[in-house]
């Protein structure tokens, strides 16, 4: 139960923790081709949990980022993601606009105030 990627072959870890738990839903979709009510209570809960997990990963990527992003000060990372999200909301909910403004803020603020 406490196995991590360091304990086994990374490709085996990819299959066990990435491929199979994802692919099994595609297989189930093929074999149990019954229509699923996406507005059913269980699906609403599942979608909420899946969204929250992804949101948590996003938060962790900003707060405790890996490698190169860690060299950018926390305040700049937070300012940049906030700027990007506000741009996304203001500019017709365009993901592209959000990414562009967030990136511009990150690079701009880093060049101005970075280490």
């Amino acid at each position, binding site marked *: *139960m*406490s196995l*991590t*990627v360091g304990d086994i072959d*990374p*490709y085996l870890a*990819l299959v066990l*923790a*990435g*491929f199979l*738990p*994802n*692919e*099994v*839903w*595609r*297989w189930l*979709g*093929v*074999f*149990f*081709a*019954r*229509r*699923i009510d996406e507005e059913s209570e269980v*699906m*609403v*809960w*599942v*979608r*909420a*949990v*899946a*969204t*929250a*997990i*992804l*949101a*948590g*990963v*996003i938060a*962790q990527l900003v*707060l405790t980022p*890996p*490698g*190169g*992003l860690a060299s*950018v000060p926390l305040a700049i*990372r937070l300012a940049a*993601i906030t700027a*990007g*999200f506000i741009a*996304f909301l203001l500019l017709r909910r365009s*993901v*592209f606009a959000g*990414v562009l403004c967030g*990136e511009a803020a*990150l*690079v701009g603020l*880093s060049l101005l105030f970075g280490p």
Partner: protein
Amino acid sequence: MTDTQPIERMTSAAAFCRGAVEAGRSVFVYVLFGTFIGYGALAHDLGFTISWSLTSTALIWAGPAQVIVVSALGAGSTLVQAAVAVALSGIRLMPMVVALLPMVKTPKTRSWQLLASAHFIAVSMWVESFRLIPQIPRERRLAFCNGLGAGLMVPALVATAIGYALAARLPTVLGAAVLFITPIAFLASTARNSRLLVDKLALVFGLVLAPVFAYAQVELDMLLAGVTAGTLAYGCHRFREAMR
């Protein structure tokens, strides 16, 4: 479309190529390209090899699941925690497969063909196939979908490699910018996909609770924070329904 050919004229190979060409015309190919540059960079900085990163794109083929699995494994989470988190994010694929397959199946279609095709199904491919397959004769739809899937996956693989190489070579600030694609792109696209209040609440609660759980060093923090935040959001939704 003026170039719709009658069934007897369109071979499977032609349908596959048509799908690949449509993928190239799709707006999603640009979105995927940018997203997977970010993913490649993320995988690099979390310590995975380039061949592992490419294999993960080909095998998982679902952006959120990939980001979850590299973040979890790269941060030293257990395989079980990563697998459960991926499984929860993958459930949404099942209704997509269920909805698409009746439109591509014929009585002659074999199960293994469906399983192989289903592997390509992800949000982008699914939306595009619904838009495009009515123009394709039923007997050629499976080949068309495979072409569409391959036409989206190949650019994603190229982008994964580019992102990986960029993270390895770019000066610090630009390397950080490439890594920053993943959080900002996924934040915006998740917000965009959150139409209902329950989804929006789940996004906000997840953003807040995950760092709290991580800071408190809760065991299985990613998973428990997600389940707690999602359930809280669902509870608010139920409460609101009950008040009506």
